[in-house]
């Protein structure tokens, strides 16, 4: 985290910030090859469509995370590019903070189809509702699992103590 962004990374961060204007507060440089930004769920579609236009053409991963103490669920889309050579080495994390009681956001599958299975997984593991997802069914869990979403921090198992 001590190193500084390269000129190329700096210019990409600036370009993203310029495109998104006031919708996003800042584009952060985390470490070499890693940028991140936080979006609001109300404008996430807009942000995603803009990033797609900039050349971030697929998600390499989507992850949920439960921050129990802060009472929020976070969904992170990790984006990269196959079509733009200068973006290939980058991973851009697009984060959105959600209310832990009722986590929901519009699905980003119309923009990145590669997020399809990842969103399903985040749905069953964290209870996040992706509004408009084409098929929000269980993926990895057994069909008769009726407990709470298992990756939530307040669900503990004695075997794992």
């Amino acid at each position, binding site marked *: *985290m*001590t190193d500084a962004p390269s000129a190329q990374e700096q210019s990409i961060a600036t370009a993203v910030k310029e495109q998104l204007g006031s919708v996003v507060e800042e584009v952060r440089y*985390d*470490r070499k*090859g*890693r940028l991140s930004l936080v979006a609001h769920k109300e404008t996430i579609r807009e942000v995603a469509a803009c990033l797609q236009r900039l050349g971030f*053409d*697929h*998600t*390499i*991963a989507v*992850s949920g*995370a*439960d921050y129990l103490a802060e009472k929020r669920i976070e969904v*992170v889309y*990790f984006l990269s590019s*196959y*079509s733009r050579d200068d973006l*290939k*080495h980058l*991973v851009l*994390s697009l984060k959105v903070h959600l209310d832990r009681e009722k986590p929901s956001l519009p699905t980003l599958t119309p923009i*990145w*189809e*590669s*997020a*399809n*299975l*990842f969103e399903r997984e985040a749905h069953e*593991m964290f209870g996040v509702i992706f509004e408009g997802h084409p098929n929000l069914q*269980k*993926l*990895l*869990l*057994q069909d008769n699992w009726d407990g709470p979403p*298992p*990756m939530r921090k307040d669900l503990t*198992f004695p075997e*794992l*103590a």
Partner: protein
Amino acid sequence: MSTLDLNVGPQHPGSGHMRIIVRTDGDLIVHAIPDIGYVHRGCEKIAESRNIIKNIPMLERPNIADSSHLNWSYIQPIEDLQGVEVPERGRYIRTILCEINRIASHLYGMAIMAGIFSGHTTMYMFGFGDRELFLDLAEMLTGARMTFSFFVPGGVRRDLPKGFKEKLLETLAYLERRLPEIDRIFVSNPVFIERGRGVGVLRKEDAIRLGVVGPVLRGSGVRFDVRKDSPYGAYDRVDFEIPTFKDGDSLSRWLVRFEEIKQSISILMQAIRDIPDGPIARKSPIVIPKGEAIGRVESSRGEINHYIVGSGSDKPYRVKMNTGSFKNLLALPFLLKGARIGDMPIIYGSLDYWPVEADR
């Protein structure tokens, strides 16, 4: 229209720990729904309650044919968070083990997923026989044939043993002699070529849209390889090509893997020639600092990323594994739609899908 629903799997072989619900009209597939999760073990949940070092054997198990890449991908973000630099020699040793592992994994895939699924038992024997030599090499280096647990934050566990270089060069020379024969009997065999050509075509734009990775991506003509585009380890010190084929059919995906074996041989020869002296590991703390990081590793089945959130203790707050097979799964229903039942094993096999890696 009268259709028939078929359950393919979940027993091996053919689907293997997964079920594909196939709706057929005659012998045409109307749609196919992959049903996964039969070998889901909750690795990510378990990882949150364990020490970062004790997580290594568990988190590499989901792909025993390719464990060193899972191991590396898990270690990478931890090192980023700790700010630990791996010494040069340690990076070379990691690269060497991973390329040995890649050759072994591709031979395994060619034996089962290409050989058996296209009814070619000779390739099955060839692949398994030759792969064994690379498992021997890995055993000589790490003490284990398949699940090495060899990379730790800061470096690797052991230095190259005495006589390893000679054994490696001997094995590589043997494989170089063998490849033309494998090519003659299997890869250039008109029966295999006809079986895979034009079957399960994934066009370049679909490959990008679905976000597939590894040989599946490169078989569709996208030139992307993490080893080249975002180099780690010693990959920026060695010279190699990224084999790509533009047809996007099942044959192309296998040709990518066959050509990658040749590239791995070249990487190994350069790495063992150029490996510098020095320490193999740096001391690293057994705590994982607060913060988050994501790694990038090119495994045999494509890009793997472990996303790790640190807690400031010796246990990670969150570990998310994103494996190649999980990302390539989206291509399966897409390719099967409209295909013939008889082509299903070829298409499935060409993805080199590893169910446990996808289910975690």
